[in-house]
């Protein structure tokens, strides 16, 4: 049970006689902040039961990714329903009717800052004021979500080609800047369950990539026969240098235990390609790290149909009606 907000008689009397209970800095006709945030959360489907999103489990089988557009009419109805709470008469209806356009345009802006605020970052000083864009996203159900939590997910409005070259060159910086410019704002990226990831982007992406989380990049060795192991050496552009693989020493007592100190000594003695000065565990780890896998999903196709959202059936019942009068009537009804 909620505790009473006013307990002593003096405070109650003061509150009853106070003419203005709202802080003077708050203009009344705008949405109260909590209400605005609540409705904006609904816009990105936060709190909507999973069964409403995926009404049949076969729509999202195991080990699958499903891209989608968000039906804005659906989320608008969700907001309408929320505002319908306590709507007991024509006064509330008239009020909602008068404010609906303002509420909608305000929420179109607020939905973009939700993720920023959820991450505990300050709201942007110059928020994006452009009109509402098409929301898209994907649902991913995979063991990769469970096993590699917090993977990097990015969506781009153009197809950013994979970068090949020296990561320290100006070209790499230019590539990174281009990619950042083409990146779509992520409005929501959340686990709905340990194995289901939901992402919603602001705009229509041409490229989405899911990258192995950097804190979980593993240390891998190459082997031909599971007896002897080699460490592939990468050149400046990230390519594997042929013939430069370093044999991985193992302990005499156990053939699958890497002799870490000896491996480090060998790395330190290498000259081509040059290794980092082996000062400690960080330099050692860099030489051992496998490259993170970046899965690209390119050229997401829609059916290229832009529909009004009206129902288009599979079965054209109306087309088989031959009586011209009846057909006119039915067309009129539609």
């Amino acid at each position, binding site marked *: 049970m909620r505790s009473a907000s006013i307990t002593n008689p003096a405070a109650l009397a003061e509150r009853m006689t106070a003419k203005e209970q709202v802080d003077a800095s708050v203009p009344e006709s705008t949405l109260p902040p909590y209400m605005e945030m609540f409705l904006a959360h609904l816009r990105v489907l936060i709190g909507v039961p999973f069964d409403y999103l995926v009404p049949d489990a076969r729509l999202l089988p195991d080990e699958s990714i499903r891209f989608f557009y968000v039906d804005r009419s659906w989320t*608008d109805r969700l907001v309408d329903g929320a505002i319908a709470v306590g709507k007991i008469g024509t006064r509330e209806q008239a009020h909602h*009717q008068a404010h609906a356009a303002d509420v909608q345009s305000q929420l179109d802006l607020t939905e973009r800052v939700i993720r920023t605020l959820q991450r505990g970052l300050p709201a942007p000083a110059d928020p994006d004021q452009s009109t509402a864009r098409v929301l898209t996203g994907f649902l991913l159900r995979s063991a990769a979500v469970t096993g590699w939590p917090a993977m990097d997910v990015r969506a781009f409005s153009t197809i950013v080609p994979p970068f090949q070259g020296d990561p320290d060159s100006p070209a790499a910086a230019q590539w990174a800047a281009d990619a950042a410019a083409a990146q779509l704002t992520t409005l929501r990226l959340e686990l709905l369950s340990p194995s289901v990831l939901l992402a919603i982007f602001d705009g229509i992406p041409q490229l989405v990539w899911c990258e192995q989380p950097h804190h979980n990049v593993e240390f891998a060795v190459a082997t031909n026969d599971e007896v002897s192991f080699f460490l592939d050496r990468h050149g400046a552009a990230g390519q594997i240098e042929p013939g430069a*693989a370093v044999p991985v020493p193992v302990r005499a007592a156990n053939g699958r235990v890497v002799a870490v100190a000896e491996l480090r000594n060998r790395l330190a003695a290498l000259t081509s390609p040059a290794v980092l000065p082996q000062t400690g565990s960080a330099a050692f780890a860099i030489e051992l790290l496998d490259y993170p896998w970046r899965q690209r999903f390119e050229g997401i196709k829609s059916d290229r149909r832009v529909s009004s959202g009206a129902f288009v059936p599979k079965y054209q019942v109306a087309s088989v009606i031959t009586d011209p009068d009846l057909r006119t009537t039915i067309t009129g009804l539609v």
Partner: protein
Amino acid sequence: MTEPPPQGHMYLYDSATPPLDDGSYRLTASTEVSYRGAQQGFSQQSYFTVVGPRFTVPQAMVATTYPPSNGHGAFQDGLAHIVLSRRTLPWERELDPGKRIPAPTIPPGAPPAPAPPVPWVALLVFEEGEYTMLRGIPLPQAVPADVFARLGSPANITCDAVEADADLVASILPSIEELQLLAHVRWVNVDDRELNTAGGDGYYAVVISNRLATPNAQCRAVLVSLEERSDLVQANPPPTAEPRPERVAPPAVDAQIVAEPVDVLPNPIFTLSQPPVHTFSPVIGTPVKYVAPARVRLIALTSWQFTCEGPGTFRELMQNLDVAMFGTVADVGHPPLSDTGHLQIELQDRAGASEAVWYRGPLVPYNLTRDPLGPYHSADQARRVTPETGAEDVSYAAAFEAGRLLAAADARFAQAIMRWRRESYKQSARASTIGALAERLTLGLPATLAETLHTPIPPIVGTAATQAVVQSAPPLADAYGLAKVRGATGMNPADLASAWQLGSAAEAANLLGADPGTLGAVVSAPAQTTREDTTLAEVAADTTGLDRLASARAQAVANAATTLGAAPPGPVTPQATTPGGA
């Protein structure tokens, strides 16, 4: 480096240490005061303890593991590691505070040994059958007695432990230098990842194992505590073996199925015979004593299992995903889905009868235009009947109800929306009040009064009224209805001049009385006395001014009394004011 790493970058550090290691501390504060040449010392001692995970690591601190917990995949080529969201954890305690482990000898030509600190944890990989997990055993059973004593003999501690052959542990356990090399800190960019409470700042500690798992083996990775385990941790790594030279993959051999003849045994024939007689001879020779291999136990801070078989690495999983637009089903028609993504579902209608309806969620396979017919006020408004199938489409009605239920479940939202409405109603009520006031009274109210919602009205109206009185501006209100009378045709000098065929309107005005005050014309106010700042005594002495005020008040009271139809009160004499009396 205070800026977080940019996208696609990661920073690595050798270690991260807390300002204070875990342990008990004594804080001594002392001051030296000299008073008349004599030194007087004051000191105060207090004690505090810095506590961190010591005998178990809570699961919340484990950000992720590789291989994934209970994962299946080709993990045999990767070194298992654990990612801890508490970045200082591996360096919070001292492995060997008593310096019982000798300093390592560095072979010639080797790079200098990594700088301290040395982590007190190690990640060990055991295969099935090599180890025994002991759950919740008392601490004295998990470590040798002398280690227990050096740990401070903490009482009533239970912990998990892993038990394995001493030889095996010795062959796996990293040396001091290797321990240092197998733990580091990563700082990663967290802009494009899901919201997660663990490691929200992007810092992680990573502890790596040094053992490659055998293919097809079921393994368990155990994060063990090595605090005070100078009996196990070696200063120098054990000898290494030269790996075999690179070998090409063995040529594929065509598999052949060879039918091998099987000896067919003849049907057995049982015959009765005398039972054999066994005689036991005394044991000859010295018995061989079976010596169980020595076992050691290590405190298991956390552990997980994985299996090295099948596809299951991140790359394999992502490459094998079934990629499609939402609404694609493997078996067309199951579930029954229309081209538009609508799903046929059963619904109980209001009469309780079952009805087949269409439903489509917010996730659709193609771009839809936004419905401009809004807002909707009830779910029924959003129900549609599809003429082609005759079935109802309840998608948007369901959305409406979902939103309504979500909002109704949130008490704070209900408060906010009630406030939103109440304030809007208040605003419109206030605007109409001010509008009515401005219509009836010519007070010269500020034009923005209806918009500046928080400005209280009564003081402003009061001020405006007072100003009007003081300036003797047009009557505040047309108490006698003169404005209407003045509008009558008979009171208009121009009309009158025309009707009575007078020479001019001025002549008619003279006939009507020619007194501007009668027609409500502006009467100029008497000149105000300008004053400097005065004292109360001077005001009291100004009898002329007070008299004028008194007469004005008496006139106002008389006017009010006349309006109310009461007898005018007697003249009022201003009361003498005494200085300081007010």
